[in-house]
């Protein structure tokens, strides 16, 4: 069965002078689970688009199922048995599960009329193939992310599929859902369907894939068996740098807590949460996606005001009823989703940096003091080493890591005393991740109180001096950094 299904041979691709891919070759066997990894901009999405026929390579060719192709169209790719599951799943939230499952095959068969009986049958069969049950008449928009993904996968399987490409499939899934997904991928393997999945999460690469390919700046840096891969090698391949992990040890911790939660709760989301944050500390709050950690984070920033208990800043009770109120109490919040919550992508880097402190940069009548504004922008672009030729450029021109720095700058510019970060390094490449951790540790050492909310356990262990584990809306464990390790945290989480 070790027959090769897909071979990409010396693929080159460039866009207006930029080499996106340089001489990339790799192969996948029938039924193999293969992980394609690389930082943002490494060329992995270009490679996927070439395999699925969206782009044509400038040089090189693809061999699939024993045939050689120098170029294929998306339709040909589908007919060959290549299916891509995009991050947004390409679903129709306004249509029912049934239609979402069946539309593609109906279209492929070039049917003009709709036979609802056949559509129902097709949809039932599709779900039966991977042994899942979802209400066929439910609207897809009302389903969970995992269910949407299952629909996208089972839809892909309805064709004579030989290779499924999944673009970062685990990003929005809970641990349990990730396990279900992996179970499905293994099922596919048994049926001889190969999976190529794109990820930059280390633990996933180890857990599921047999082989890996890593790209960096458009070049292939390593390909081979996952067995030969370890943490250090992985991050070296990804970044070309070696990192030393240093555990954070607080230098100066303030005597009194600067921020306290006292039995706070929102019925239905979380309850009875208490902790104290001292200046100079980094507290990690971790838990599964549905543990209530996100709601807790939002409540500390006033986005979802608490209904029970109280928050205290410097020992005084505060009403955090809106983000503005939180900001006025010296709280900053780096949101979970940088793209949709953190940044005004089409606006300039400068605009993004000064937005939270704009009111303090004004003269009379709310006139913005242009000099102070520019000064402030220059300072932060320098301080956080944001790589840009001009802060007037739009934020969307920056890489993921630099964008995350702009989000940080936006909050640091407001000189908060308490900084809450929700998933500070989600979607950030390893190099920038390391830099962001360094910045956070320095800030803590300067006396800021920091709370990190994340399910990235190595991140928690490396950076936090105190760790709170949440489960089902409650704090189930409070650990000190010395006694914590990933296994232990995990055991409380699950």
């Amino acid at each position, binding site marked *: 069965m070790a027959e090769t299904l897909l071979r990409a041979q010396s693929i080159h691709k460039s866009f207006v002078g930029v080499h*996106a891919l340089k001489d990339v070759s790799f192969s996948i066997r029938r039924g193999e689970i293969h992980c394609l990894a690389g930082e943002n901009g490494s060329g992995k999405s270009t490679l996927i688009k070439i395999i699925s026929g969206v782009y044509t390579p400038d040089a090189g060719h693809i061999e699939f199922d024993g045939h050689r192709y120098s170029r294929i169209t998306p339709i040909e790719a589908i007919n060959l048995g290549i299916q891509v599951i995009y991050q947004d799943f390409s679903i129709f939230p306004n249509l029912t599960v049934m239609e979402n499952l069946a539309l593609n095959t109906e279209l492929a068969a070039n049917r003009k009329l709709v036979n609802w009986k056949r559509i129902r049958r097709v949809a039932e069969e599709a779900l039966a193939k991977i042994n899942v049950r979802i209400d066929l008449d439910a609207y897809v928009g009302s389903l969970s992310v995992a269910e949407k993904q299952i629909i996208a996968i089972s839809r892909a399987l309805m064709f004579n599929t030989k290779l499924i490409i999944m673009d970062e499939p685990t990003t929005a899934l809970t641990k349990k859902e990730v396990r279900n997904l992996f179970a499905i991928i293994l099922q596919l393997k048994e049926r001889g369907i190969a999976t190529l999945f794109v990820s930059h999460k280390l633990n996933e690469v180890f857990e599921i894939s047999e082989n890996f390919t890593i790209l960096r700046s458009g070049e292939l840096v390593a390909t081979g068996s996952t067995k030969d891969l370890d943490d250090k090698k992985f991050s070296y391949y990804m970044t070309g740098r070696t990192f030393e992990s240093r555990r954070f040890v607080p230098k100066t911790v303030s005597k009194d807590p600067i921020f306290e939660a006292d039995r706070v709760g929102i019925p239905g989301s979380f309850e009875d949460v208490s902790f104290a944050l001292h200046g100079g500390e980094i507290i990690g709050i971790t838990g599964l996606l549905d543990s209530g950690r996100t709601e807790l984070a939002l409540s500390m920033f006033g986005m979802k005001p608490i209904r029970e208990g109280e928050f205290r800043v410097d020992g005084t009770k505060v009403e955090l009823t809106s*983000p503005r109120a939180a*900001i006025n109490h010296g709280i900053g919040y780096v949101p979970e989703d940088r793209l949709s919550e953190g940044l*005004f992508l*089409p*606006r300039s880097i400068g*605009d993004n940096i000064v937005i939270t402190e704009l009111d303090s940069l004004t003269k009379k009548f709310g*006139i913005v003091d242009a000099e102070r504004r520019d000064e402030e922008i220059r300072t932060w672009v320098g301080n956080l080493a944001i790589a840009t030729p001009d802060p007037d450029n739009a934020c969307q021109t920056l890489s993921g890591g630099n964008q995350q720095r702009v989000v940080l700058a936006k909050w640091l510019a407001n000189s908060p005393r308490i900084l809450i970060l929700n998933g500070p390094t989600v979607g950030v490449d390893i190099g920038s991740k390391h830099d962001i951790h360094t910045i956070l540790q320095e800030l803590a050492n300067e006396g800021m109180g920091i709370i990190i909310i994340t399910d990235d356990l190595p991140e928690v262990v490396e950076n936090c001096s105190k760790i709170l584990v949440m489960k089902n809306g409650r704090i189930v464990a409070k650990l000190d950094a010395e006694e914590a390790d990933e296994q232990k945290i995990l055991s409380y989480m699950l």
Partner: protein
Amino acid sequence: MTTPTLLKKAQGIYRSDRHVWRLIIMIALWLIFMAITRFRKFYTLINFQTMAAQFPEFGLMSLGIMLAMITGGIDLSVVGAANLTSILMAFLLINLTTATGGLPAYAIPLVFLLAILLGAAFGLFNGLLVSKFHIPPILATMGSGELFTGICMAMTNGNAISKFSRAYSRAINNRLFDMIPVQLIIFTVMAVIIWFLLSKTAYGSKLYLLGTSPTVARFSGLKTDRLLMQTYMISGICAALGGMIMLANYNSARADYGTVYTLQCVLIVVLGGVSPVGGRGKINGVVLAIILLRLLETGLNRFPKISSYYISLIWGGVLILVMVLNYFTENAKVKTTNT
């Protein structure tokens, strides 16, 4: 400096603000065309004064719609708000009219003050619907516009209200230094205020950011509800002032005056380079689009053989043409930056 570099520089200036330059070029071409064909009839002081007295009506309303559109919304209630204001003020003016047919000295400042308050109140109503009740702006303002017009109809039965002192109309139709129409002054004052708000104040920056992404704006601690309410209030004030100018220009108020203005104003705003999805657009583009419309319409009137209705054809054609041009220039941009 050699010609190619000059050309490049010109190109750079053009690209820096494509919409504005495109409009300037169109205006210039039209002015040249008018100079060649109808110089004597078009280039008269009185002609320009008349234009300057006419365009503030819909010009003011366009400014309001522009603000709403920058936040990602739209204000379709401007004409309704303008008519309701002018009818209410017409009733007030009837009561203030003295036996000799004049007006007391305080009357005009009073009606303007009240008009501004009314406009703000109408705008606040829209703002509440949009921000607190989360009704999509296009529906909320369509509904409130219908409601305002409905109240006008119910109050007047569709008749014109005109039996008030001519002193009001005379005052507004005055010219400063015998040159500049009062209508133009009112428009200019509002335009300068809005320009100032948009480009110099924190409010303006926030408005653009809110239009770019309401979610990020909320996460950045902007009081989005208040910003929306303020914006629709300013739009309401613009509309109310537009109504007061209509009241002066027609010397009467009626529920169905200016009904074509709603779509015309949206057209102006889009042509002026304001993005219908929010976050982008400048007042100079909108002002140029207003002027262009007026010049086209008045210029066309100088050709008695050509029906003035062609203006509508030209206007729609220009809008679609500009959108298509944008499509090509923006697609070219995407292609070069896409990696």
